[in-house]
């Protein structure tokens, strides 16, 4: 076991002790995860559980340094935990190769941790963990990186913004169907066409035709009715061609269909080309005649842009290979669908070849396979250092959270701009959005002995029985019960009262939301009941419904007087550091939106000597505003210092 003397010297014995006793959950063991796990294991943390569903790939090794070549294809969490146990034998570190959304990881499981740290790479999982941490009342440290950019923040239910308080930009960009199918103007349109239309129609599970007009409103649909009809015809023709797979003429038939026939049809829509450059048909035979002598379609050069003739040869080669694979799978009894995987060479090269052929037809710039792989596979460039910086900041924040020094937590952005000297920008943690549909909720747990015996009516009666007691849910009289998007009960809809919870699909792990039916202004804070198994009574008596968790409910700020929506257009700050979140309309007397725990004391003697010096200096600098107790004063002081000194990296000339 590694000594933690220096940790205690820097942060004090009390903090060091909290750190070593804390039970941590690390979600993700990839780029940020490896750096984070290394930091945690060397910073005195003794109890760590890491979860990641992924396995190790060669392209991970430029930054996920706990892994080596010999570990390729093994589960990330497992190898990462083994590595940190080699660094620091004796720590209680465990791994799970699983999806964090699995039902085993319920609210009870989350509440077994003192702190959760996200090292994820997708919005969906982040939203899920955010909700679970709110429900389990566990603080969360959220992070993200992309290229040179990174971000860290702290989410503590009721005290700070949660992950969903501000809308986030959609992860995947979508394009209108006409742009993809009829009027492309950029390489990405051709790539999306090749991957999501051509590849999918021929080798993948047939797309549902109903999706064709996605993204269009009623008016657009009406205008494009004729065009959409034509497009559907084309899709059907293509599907029929797929049946010719395996025959020698298969590639030619596909080529003539999409690069000649369909283009001829497009050309006949004269209006479409009034303002646009019209496409030209491609000639299969002519192209194949002039393929480069040294071109080997089995090993194309992925760095250079292929000639259109070579692309045609590549198309033929990959079309045949993919057809062969589908037929082989069908022989073995499966339906034979292939799904696009950027690391599947045949699929990638097919998409690259056909995307470039389409670009040729439409006069669009062509791209190398290397470039196409990034666009088709949504690759995010990544390096070790950004992850290292972010992971370092995460651990500092973790120590602050665990030692109840939330005033010293911030949102921090790692930005990159050669003009600026500052590369880390920090801003105060924002207060929750008073309209947030996720965190402005009283999260409680409802223990149910048997979901197949308890009815919805039982639950509602139980809730009503708490009215007027100290465990009043503060919902008022007329409540409505909702699960997801289904209304289970409201005063006008009582049909389900006699149904068992189980028959309504309400089983352990589900959450139901209780609101006040008449609350138009959103003054009542909804209650979210997490359904959980009853632990059972020790003396074996009949167990009843029980609602728990009242002591953990945070205080909710009153709604602002103007009752207007806030924060509708804040951007995800990880882009370039410019998306600063401004929530100063929210809480009435909140100057800089730093939230502290009720028992935080800026002069706590358990801090190391350096910190005392710092606090003292900041207090000396403080503007004289003598209202309220010293606690409040310290808060404002922190704000002043934070505002004047946004930067952790300073430049000395």
């Amino acid at each position, binding site marked *: 076991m590694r000594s933690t003397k220096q940790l205690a010297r820097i942060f004090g014995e009390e903090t060091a002790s909290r750190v070593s006793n804390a039970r941590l959950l690390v979600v993700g063991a990839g780029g940020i995860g490896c750096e984070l796990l290394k930091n945690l294991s060397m910073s005195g943390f003794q109890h760590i559980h890491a979860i990641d569903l992924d396995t190790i790939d060669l392209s991970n090794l430029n930054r996920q340094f706990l892994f080596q070549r010999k570990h390729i294809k093994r589960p990330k969490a497992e190898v990462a935990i083994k590595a940190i146990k080699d660094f620091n034998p004796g720590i209680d570190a465990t791994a799970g190769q699983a999806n964090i959304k699995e039902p085993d990881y319920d609210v009870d499981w989350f509440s077994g941790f003192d702190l959760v740290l996200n090292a994820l790479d997708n919005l969906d999982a982040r939203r899920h963990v955010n909700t679970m941490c709110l429900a389990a009342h566990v603080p969360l440290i959220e992070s993200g990186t992309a290229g040179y950019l990174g971000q860290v923040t702290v989410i503590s239910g009721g005290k700070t913004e949660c992950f969903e308080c501000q809308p986030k930009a959609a992860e995947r960009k979508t394009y209108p169907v006409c742009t993809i199918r009829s009027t492309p103007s*950029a390489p990405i349109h051709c790539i999306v066409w090749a991957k999501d239309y051509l590849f999918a129609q021929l080798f993948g599970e047939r797309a549902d035709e109903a999706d064709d007009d996605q993204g269009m409103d009623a008016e657009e649909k009406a205008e494009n009715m004729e065009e959409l009809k034509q497009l559907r015809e084309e899709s059907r023709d293509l599907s029929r061609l797929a049946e010719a797979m395996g025959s020698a003429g298969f590639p030619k038939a596909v080529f003539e269909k999409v690069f000649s026939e369909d283009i001829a049809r497009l050309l006949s829509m004269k209006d479409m080309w009034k303002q646009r450059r019209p496409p030209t048909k491609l000639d299969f035979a002519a192209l194949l005649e002039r393929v480069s002598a040294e071109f080997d379609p089995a090993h194309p050069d992925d760095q250079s842009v292929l000639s259109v003739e070579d692309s045609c040869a590549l198309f033929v080669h990959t079309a045949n290979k993919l057809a062969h694979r589908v037929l082989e799978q069908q022989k073995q009894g499966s339906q034979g669908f292939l799904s696009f995987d950027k690391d599947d060479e045949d699929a990638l090269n097919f998409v690259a070849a056909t995307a470039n052929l389409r670009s040729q037809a439409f006069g669009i710039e062509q791209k190398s396979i290397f470039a196409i792989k990034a666009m088709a596979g949504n690759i995010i460039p990544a390096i070790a250092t950004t992850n290292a910086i972010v992971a370092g900041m995460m651990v500092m924040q973790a120590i602050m959270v665990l030692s109840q020094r939330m005033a010293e937590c911030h949102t921090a952005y790692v930005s990159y701009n050669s003009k600026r000297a500052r590369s880390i920008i920090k801003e105060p943690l924002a207060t929750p959005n008073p309209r947030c549909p996720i965190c402005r909720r009283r999260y409680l747990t409802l223990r149910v002995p048997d979901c197949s015996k308890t009815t919805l009516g039982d639950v509602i009666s139980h809730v009503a029985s708490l009215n007027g007691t100290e465990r009043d849910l503060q919902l008022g009289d007329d409540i409505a019960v909702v699960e997801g998007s289904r209304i289970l009960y409201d005063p006008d809809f009582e049909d389900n009262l006699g149904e068992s919870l189980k028959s309504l699909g309400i089983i352990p792990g589900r959450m139901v939301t209780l609101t006040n039916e008449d609350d138009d202004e959103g003054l009542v804070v909804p209650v979210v009941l997490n359904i959980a198994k009853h632990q059972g009574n020790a003396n074996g008596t009949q167990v009843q419904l029980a609602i728990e968790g009242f002591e953990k409910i945070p205080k909710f700020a009153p709604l602002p007087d103007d009752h207007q929506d806030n924060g509708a257009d804040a951007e995800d700050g990880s882009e370039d550091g410019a998306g600063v979140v401004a929530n100063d309309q929210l809480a009435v007397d909140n100057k800089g939106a730093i939230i502290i725990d009720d028992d935080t004391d800026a002069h706590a003697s358990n801090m190391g000597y350096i910190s005392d010096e710092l606090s003292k200096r900041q207090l000396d600098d403080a503007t004289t505003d003598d209202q309220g107790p010293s606690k409040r004063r310290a808060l404002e002081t922190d704000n002043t210092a934070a505002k004047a000194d946004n930067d952790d990296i300073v430049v000395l000339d």
Partner: protein
Amino acid sequence: MGGISKEEVALYDRQIRLWGMEAQSRLRTASLCFIGVKALTLEACKNLVLAGVGHITLCDGGSVKEEDLEVQYYFQPEDLGQAKDKVLAERLKMLNPLVDIQANSKLSDKDANLDKFDVVVAVGGRQCSPVQLNGLCRTAKATRFVAADSFGAFGYIFADCLDEHEYMEEVKSVGGGEASNSESKHQKLAAAYKPLSQSILAKPEAINTQRLLRKYPPLVFICQ
């Protein structure tokens, strides 16, 4: 492509997509020297090795001590008493066998020839004063110098990229449209750096002390 093999492209794929093939080529031939083996050295070298630099020489002369074990994860109890630079070099090699990593305890001598290094990094001041090392680098003419150290929750970095440091700055093109090419224009600029000796001598009277003290914790000045 500058001789980057297919295997290297596969390994460095994600970073090549960020900084480009040219930058990766330059990294590949870069030669670095770290004088002073501390936790900071370990972290910086780990990142550089992962990035695929050409060569790193570590120089310390000291041996692994108890306090090193607390923060340097590549040192184990059985390494106590061994030459720090040698042990770290061994461990870093496992991280990326493509990088040439050596230990050479003699490099901090005042007669050392630092010519062959592109950058010399002085971590802490135990072996040799950073000011002196900076001077040696300037003598070598094309060797850039970095000084850095960390203490608890504080740290500093100083860089001297010599008198004519050329660099590229991105110029964002206006009205490119979402679908246009991802390359933006770059312009070549030059900057002149000062050595540490001059930086330290900067007269306090010339600076607004109040403003400075508000911005930087006093510890920064103690570091000097």
